[in-house]
């Protein structure tokens, strides 16, 4: 379970999170929607401790992420994250990208790591690209590789940060298919996205973010069909 309690965070003068609270249960898929710069991505970075927070706390399975004695490297093994800019490691092949953390972080043998990685890469449809370098792949393929790389660590949670925003439109579908597959398999996911149809389809709950606050959170049916807050209605009107 991920528990976010009254989290506040500023970058200099700019307060990007103004008291965010949200709970995500195991097996749940929660989508986070809202305009650019509303703090959605920052919240994801806070969950795995890539960004410090100023106030409040975040618990992952009871462990306080920003506590001084928390081993973040260990915590992060349970939290996979995929970024908008897919961040493939350009100097490593697809297979090496996926095995590196298995070998160097989890200490698995090359044989075991290869086995796990190949399974995950086949899962996302890249089984025939193992020896290729990322520069030879399309954006969609690189993004799927990033997903496989995160999944290979067998995380309990997956965070997706606008993973289709930097892709050409015709490549969006293949990445969403991969995420849909994961959601159907019961992976716990927080998905920051601009893909409203996708959010509506796969999510158990949808959260609407604006100006550093969650204005509304509810089932897709509630939020998309009868939003309670005028801000949510306005936003939906502008994007749908």
């Amino acid at each position, binding site marked *: 379970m991920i528990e976010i309690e009254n989290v506040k965070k500023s970058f200099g003068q700019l307060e990007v999170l103004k008291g965010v609270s949200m709970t995500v249960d195991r097996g749940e898929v929660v989508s986070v929607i809202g305009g650019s710069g509303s703090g959605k991505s920052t919240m994801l970075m806070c969950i*795995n401790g*890539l960004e410090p927070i100023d106030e409040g706390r975040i618990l992952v399975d009871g462990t306080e992420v920003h506590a001084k004695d928390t081993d973040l*490297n*260990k915590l*992060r*093994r349970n*939290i*996979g*994250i995929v*970024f908008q*800019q897919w*961040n493939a*490691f*350009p*100097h*490593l092949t697809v297979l090496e990208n996926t095995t*590196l*953390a298995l070998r*160097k*972080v*989890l200490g698995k043998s090359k044989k075991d790591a290869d086995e796990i990685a190949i399974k995950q890469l086949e899962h996302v449809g890249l089984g025939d690209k193992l020896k290729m*370098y*990322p*520069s030879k792949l399309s954006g969609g393929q690189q993004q799927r590789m*990033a997903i496989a*790389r*995160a999944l290979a*660590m067998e995380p309990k949670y997956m965070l997706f940060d606008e993973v289709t925003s930097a892709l050409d439109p015709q490549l969006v579908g293949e990445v969403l298919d991969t995420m849909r597959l994961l959601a159907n398999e019961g992976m716990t996911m927080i998905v920051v996205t601009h893909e409203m149809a996708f959010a509506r389809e796969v999510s158990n709950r949808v959260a609407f973010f604006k100006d550093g606050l969650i204005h509304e959170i509810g089932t897709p049916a509630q939020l998309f069909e009868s939003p309670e807050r005028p801000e949510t209605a306005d936003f939906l009107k502008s994007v749908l």
Partner: protein
Amino acid sequence: MFDINYTFHWNQAFRALPDMLAGAWITLQIAVLSMVIGIIVGVVLALAKQSRFVAARGFATTWIEIARNTPALFQVYMIYFGIPAVLQLVASWFDIDFRAMGINIFYLDSYWAVLVGIAFNNAGYLAETFRGGLRAVPDTQTRAARSLGFGPFDAFRLIVLPQMFRAVFHPMTNQMVWAILMTSVGIFVGLNIDLTGVTQELNARTFRTFEFFALAAAIYYVIAKIVTSGARLIAWRLFRY
């Protein structure tokens, strides 16, 4: 007509070729070792220059500024003559006479003085090159590595460093060639076993200045060419991406 009392005696030079090649081997040794040290220290200096600690930044800046803005010859000179003298003077203030104790810790023989001096110079130049190379690797790479559970050191070593080395490979090759040519300043601190040193001794014995130095120049040229083409080959093997 006037007398030209210089005739070429190439045979004499060619007979000395084995000695000169032995000298070239020493030259290459110093250059390679000074590069290895220079690369390691250069990476540390590049990181120190970005450190949040003022002392680390100051130390790195001082090193880089001296290495890049004073003659390489002076740097070797200082290590051979200057620093031992200063250190002995400082020791004498505390009534410590290392020489009386039979310890010669401050004195480097010419081979080591040249090696350390050129390594100092390499490190300074390479630190600036590396700093540029590090900027070529986006922060998001570190972020992605950290999110997979790598610690800061592993993220740097496994993800950032290999990409940096690709970005700086060609300037690094240039520095290697420069290091080979710089070894010739060893002659000013009495180094007589490297290519220049051997050549100078042969010259002093025979006065066949032109022949010996032309041959030495040709050997330097060939070594430099081998290094650059070797580097190209390594780059082609290493950077397939």
